[in-house]
């Protein structure tokens, strides 16, 4: 039933501030495209059906699952991955420094996804409560930390971002 020829198409999009023009397989998932074609391996792939949240990135500024989008769909979009978050090789972002301070990661597999969610959500609203943070973190599975340190880091980041 499947046709053997893989169909390709040219897309233009912005990845972490850089314009990219590239040919993609029509059926390729955005998560695989970022990792295997563009080498942005900070985006992790866990469940591939939207449950675990490890592959969360920004599409047009909104935290989204990259395993639930096709690479071809980001034509004319802005995409940001975890590689865009720190301001240089040495300087961590507010959220990253708080993760470090509160030991909010152990194995680190879920961390890029969580940081991408928080770096959208925490900048979107003022006066974010701990309940809001727990609610938004429910979209990520972390099997190491038990979440309490992640919540602490997120609450402190929210305060710092608010104060800015």
């Amino acid at each position, binding site marked *: 039933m499947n046709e053997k020829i893989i169909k390709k198409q040219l897309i233009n999009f912005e990845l972490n501030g850089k314009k990219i023009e590239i040919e993609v397989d029509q059926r390729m998932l955005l998560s695989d495209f970022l990792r295997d074609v563009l080498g942005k391996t900070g985006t992790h792939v866990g469940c591939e059906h*939207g449950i675990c949240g490890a592959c969360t990135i920004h599409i047009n500024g909104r935290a*989204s699952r990259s395993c639930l989008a*096709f690479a071809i769909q980001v034509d004319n979009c802005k995409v940001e991955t975890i590689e865009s978050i720190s301001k240089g090789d040495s300087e961590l972002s507010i959220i990253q420094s708080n993760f470090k301070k509160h030991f909010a990661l152990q194995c680190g597999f879920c961390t890029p996804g969580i940081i991408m969610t928080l770096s959208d*959500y925490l900048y979107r609203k003022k006066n974010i409560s701990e309940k809001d943070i727990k*609610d938004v973190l429910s979209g990520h599975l972390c099997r190491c930390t038990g979440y309490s340190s992640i919540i602490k880091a997120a609450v402190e980041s929210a305060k710092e971002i608010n104060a800015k």
Partner: protein
Amino acid sequence: MKPVNFSYKCPDNIEEVLSILSCEKENGQVLAGGQSLIAMLNMRLLYPKVILDIKNIESLSYITHTEKGLQIGANVTQQKLLEYENLNEVSPLLHKILPWVGHYQTRTRGTICGSLAHADPSSEIALCLALLKGKVKLISKNQERLLSAEEFQKGLLTTACHSDEIIEYALFPKLEESVGVAFNEFAFRHGDFSLLSVAVLVSKDSISLGVTGLSDKPYITAFPLLSGDQIDDALNDLAWKLHGEDDHIAPSSYRRNLLRKIGKKTIKEAMK
């Protein structure tokens, strides 16, 4: 966990979508947010030949608030509706249920109409549409149909939408201001498929109750105004009537108990 090979089309007007669908019929698949569809494709539960992405169709990206209620185009994401100005006054039930629909990270792409088209039995949006007696507008190359929620959702992942049709919009009718509204659900993790959801509307003389988790689509029923033990009895009767089925997650008795507990809590909240 990768989809089959397909050809991707991204038309910028609805006429082109309808004409492709009228040729491709069941080989064509409309893609909106993709938050259920792409998971289904990844698991190869679906293998369409043509994927029709409607993201560029501006005419489907609107929310209109009229006397009749909220009319929501096929491209409107769940998060966009949740952030709609004064949603808690315009449609208090939608405002209550939307935070329970998936996670923030899926609501940013997942659409209202896509959720209806997917017709998951535990869908909060389908429950809301059914309880509010909402409507779904379907269009194809040759005809237009306006179906009630009851006519639209046939059962488990099944709707009345033909293979050459697309949902143009869903209409969520307006409630009178005096109507009390409440919603609760139980899932092992917030945002997962719920084991049981209950939505309740309380008006001057009756209680309307919608429930998912015990049947293959939202079940809607109405009671006269009840109090105290009468509520327990009515919910117990309803639990046994719907019965539910045992599955790998929970036995049916567990779900019936959830209805008794969550049903009562939700009715009481709506009566306040």
